[in-house]
């Protein structure tokens, strides 16, 4: 019992930060209906600003109180800037667009901080007391108690603000029904801005207080969004009190897990606690919360139709795709080895992005677990080959089947939630897979990755090291690239045709309105499960191709940061079009566009941070210009032109009105 008390106390500081981020998520949801993935990064920014002011990084150092106050003012200004740049322009855009914008803000904040201050953490001067107390024979800093107390007070204050003030009532009104709020003379834009400012100031205050307790790092604080999302979910995205309590409980639980991991009953492997148990626990916590709260998650009544991006018809695909396929085939033979490899990587990534088109574009379910499923396929191929001697083609088949089963299981766990909320469960699932499977030395990559044997069929090596070299006589062999090209084309055609067929129409019906779809006889659950199955199979296929392409698999290739970047890229390029998957694929890490940037455009120094910055800025700019995605926007323009032309020529058949396409 003493130990439980001790470890509970030791978890207070972590819990306080998680609770603060959770409160920020609730504020964003209340204010603008956005799940703010950047909430953890906001705390980080506040910590860096305060450190600058106190240490005189840019200007003469300030005393404690002026530094705190100025930090809060700057955080408020930052909130205004983010609201103007990334929130307000997207108020009438789809929830996906707003979520992607928050990913853009996250990438931008993190990259900017690393470019300005370097990648090293900083030590912020202490604001809270440095005194310690002894608890069960262990010294515990008083600052931990104070920090937790401050967060509890903030949560109570916010609860009272939103319950008893006119501003709070107005926010709740706008949150429940924006149309009625406007009729009552309220401005959703102003309310959103005010809520953002409050969220940034609250996060800033706790960020300043916590900076000296936990350190300020651009690599760790933003990742605390995951447990914070779990807390926010338990709070139904509305209750500050529950978000605070759940955040503190998660931090305490994390600390108790340290204690539990030393007990004999705790699951072990090779004498050590199984890695990833915390992430698995957080995932199940989220799933339980979804099952408990799922049907009552708040839906916002909004002024404009917040439909998902339109799904234009995809016609003349052969004519459009043929030149690209031909170019790829030629490139795979004649280009230098690094570009040949980049083309193959682009093809593999295209297959992965096609899975986003199915699950996000066609069914409207925002899943970020696809990359983790690809990793699962890749690691399975590796382990089957090296440990069980199961190679091509049985190994890949099993690997894809396994990824499909897991994807379906995750989808089934989230059946009660719709659309955007699914991001929470898939985000947690992705991290749980990363930590529980990939980081495990026995199941995953171990220390430096897992080797993958080349695929062979009837004694013929089909891998990247096949004896059929490129035109310059070097590896990688174009053979594997050409096979990847064929596979990609087949899957591209499959996904494009899926949209035209009966299943595709049912998917679009579910995406448009689940209740309406059910009313006309569509089995919504079955459609969702099938969609998850198809998307997971595509992801697993991509994982297998990736493994064969590089002959190795490592956990670092399937991290959540890469997954979020990929999701965002697919969205801004056109998540409802197969062409969007191709563009996003060739812009993925290791593919052609990054290679060109790396070789000729960007400076070698801190290149990956510059790439992240460019992606972050690019996302925000692109979303402002084409909130539904670049290709979708262009396609819609084209359709409107055709429509206009048709109207001016009576002989032409009436224009198409597809699901989600404005007439």
């Amino acid at each position, binding site marked *: 019992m003493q130990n439980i008390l001790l470890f509970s106390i030791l978890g207070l500081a972590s819990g306080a930060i998680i609770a603060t981020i959770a409160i920020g998520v609730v504020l964003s949801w209340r204010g603008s209906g956005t799940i703010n993935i950047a909430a953890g990064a906001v705390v980080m920014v506040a910590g860096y600003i305060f450190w600058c002011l106190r240490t005189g990084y840019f200007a003469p150092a300030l005393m404690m109180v002026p530094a705190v106050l100025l930090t809060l003012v700057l955080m408020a200004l930052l909130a205004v800037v983010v609201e103007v740049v990334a929130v307000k322009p997207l108020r009438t855009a789809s929830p996906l667009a707003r979520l992607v914008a928050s990913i853009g803000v996250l990438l931008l904040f993190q990259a900017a901080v690393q470019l300005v201050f370097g990648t090293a*953490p900083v030590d912020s001067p202490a604001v809270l007391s440095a005194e310690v107390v002894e608890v069960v*024979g262990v*010294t*515990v800093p008083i600052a931990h108690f104070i920090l937790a107390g401050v967060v509890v007070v903030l949560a109570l204050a916010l609860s009272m603000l939103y319950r008893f003030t006119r501003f709070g009532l107005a926010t709740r009104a706008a949150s429940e029904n924006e149309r009625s709020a406007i009729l009552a003379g309220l401005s959703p834009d102003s309310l959103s801005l005010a809520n953002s400012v409050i969220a940034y100031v609250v996060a800033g205050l706790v960020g300043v207080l916590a900076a000296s307790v*936990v350190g300020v790092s651009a690599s760790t*604080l933003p990742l*605390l969004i995951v447990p914070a999302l779990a807390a926010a979910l338990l709070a139904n995205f509305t209750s500050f009190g529950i978000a605070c309590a759940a955040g503190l409980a998660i931090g305490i639980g994390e600390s108790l897990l*340290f204690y539990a991991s030393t007990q004999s009953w705790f699951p072990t492997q090779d004498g050590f606690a199984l890695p990833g148990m915390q992430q698995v626990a957080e995932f199940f916590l989220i799933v339980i919360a979804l099952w408990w709260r799922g049907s009552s998650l708040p839906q916002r009544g909004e002024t404009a139709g917040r439909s998902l991006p339109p799904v234009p018809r995809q016609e003349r695909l052969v004519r459009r795709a043929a030149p690209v396929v031909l170019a790829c085939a030629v490139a795979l033979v004649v280009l230098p080895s690094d570009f040949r490899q980049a083309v193959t990587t682009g093809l593999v990534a295209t297959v992965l992005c096609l899975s986003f088109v199915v699950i996000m574009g066609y069914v409207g379910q925002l899943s970020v677990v696809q990359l983790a499923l690809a990793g699962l396929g890749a690691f399975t191929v590796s382990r089957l080959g090296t440990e069980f001697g199961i190679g091509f083609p049985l190994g890949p088949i099993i690997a894809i089947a396994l990824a499909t089963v897991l994807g379906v299981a995750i989808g089934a766990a989230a059946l009660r939630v719709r659309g955007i909320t699914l991001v929470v469960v898939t985000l947690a699932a992705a991290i749980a897979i990363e930590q529980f499977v990939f980081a495990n030395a026995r199941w995953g990559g171990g220390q430096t990755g897992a080797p993958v044997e080349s695929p062979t069929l009837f004694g013929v090596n089909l891998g990247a090291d096949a004896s059929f070299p490129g035109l310059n006589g070097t590896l990688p062999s174009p053979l594997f690239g050409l096979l990847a090209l064929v596979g990609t084309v087949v899957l591209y055609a499959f996904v494009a045709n899926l949209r035209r067929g009966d299943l595709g129409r049912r998917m679009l019906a579910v995406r448009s309105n689940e209740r309406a779809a059910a009313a006309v006889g569509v089995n919504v659950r079955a459609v969702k499960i099938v969609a998850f199955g198809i998307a997971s199979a595509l992801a697993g296929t991509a994982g297998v191709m990736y493994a064969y392409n590089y*002959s190795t698999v490592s956990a*670092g290739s399937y991290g959540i940061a890469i997954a979020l970047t990929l999701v965002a890229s697919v969205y801004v390029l056109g998540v409802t079009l197969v062409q969007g998957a191709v563009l996003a694929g060739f812009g993925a890490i290791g593919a052609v566009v990054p290679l060109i940037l790396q070789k000729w455009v960007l400076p070698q120094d801190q290149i990956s941070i510059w790439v992240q910055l460019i992606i972050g800025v690019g996302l925000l700019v692109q979303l402002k210009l084409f909130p539904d995605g670049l290709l979708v926007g262009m396609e819609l323009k084209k359709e409107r032109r055709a429509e206009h032309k048709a109207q001016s020529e009576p002989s032409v058949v009436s224009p198409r009105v597809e699901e989600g396409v404005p007439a």
Partner: protein
Amino acid sequence: MKPTSSQRLVRSRGLGRLPLPVSVLAVALTLAGCASDSDTPGKEATGGDPAATASADPWAVTDYVDYTGGTDGAADESLEPVTIGWLNQQGGPLGFPWATAGAKAAVKYVNEHLGGVDGHPLALSTCFIADAEAEGNACGLELVNDDDVKTVLYGTVMAGNQSFQAVNKGKKPLLMSNSISPIDAAADNVYTYNGNPGSIFGGLASYASEVVKAKSVSVIYPQDAQSTAGVGILKAALDSVDIDMKAVGFDPSTTNLTGAAVAAGVQDADLVIPLVSFPPACIAAAKALESLSVTAPVVATGSFCFTDATAQGLGGEAPLWHQLATQTNVADHSLPDVQAYLDASADVGLGAEGQGSSDASLAWGLVLTAARLLNEAGGAEADEASIAKAAKALEGPIVLGSAEIECGAYAKQPGLCGAQTRVFEHTGGGEFKALTEWLSPAGL
């Protein structure tokens, strides 16, 4: 033949950085407060004035012409260059650009003062990994496919190692100072001259057993793929010397390690090992151990927890822990080989900051060793096979490294040619002092 334990008595000051993988490389001993205490186990074991024997380094390499087998003077620029590949991690959040600076300085020195390679200028073909595993593959294709590249040298590489080797498949000799994985030492045509996780954690076990006389060791480690594997290697090494280990893993994104440290029993252990090497984790570990007023020695492997980045995160001072290193500490200017390095590298424009970087000094030594191997293998006529033969036959001492080098000394890891380590104490302000002689790894 295995190198014998405790053969070397070098006393040095300064930072001997051991660039190992982000999380596998941390070993530790004492916390700041007790580091200068003459009663600390480390001091008790070594005794005497560390500076007293500093000039008696019989293995110190100071004559680079002799070491490389070159000639005094410049290379003949009219001849075709002899090219070696250089793989390094830089350009990402975790980068080691000083390694490349050190390598380039060494190449310049070879060309201006050591007659190049058999009179031919030495050229460096570089390829960098920013942070993605896939980039190792791209570098593999670039360097391995290049017929002009005779051998590939590893700088400090944390990601992309496996995918690089998947391309190389033993084709070209790979020369490394430190390897991030025991897998390297079992791979074809890999030669590691300073150490790998097996030798480093084995060195830790030797230190805990022979010097600290520890019975129990407390370990905290991030539950990433590298550290999870690393803690297993450490346990095997400690088991071989009958030391109990209590290890607690934590989520890599965790910012507060107090709970993990308490659960690992840091307050009761004879030795504390924060198995961390990423600056945020080093900082979190240092804050946790400080807040818990840990009195046991704390030892970290590598230099990650002693870098400027970590010092910055702790208010300007890196933790006053002990450090296990695999190379001569270049911060001790009294050592003859360090002085030779400082003079020579300054001569070709490597500044003080670069000279102080262990990445640069490791790279410097590796390039000079590569020049020696090329000369031995036939100069401009050297091919992959002859270089591999020379690399395998290399005996110590090596530049800024331990005296004994023997490829094949460890049957299961034929590519591990140098495996000795030694422990330094960070006394503050970037000053280090040697606590031990060279230690041979336990349980390897």
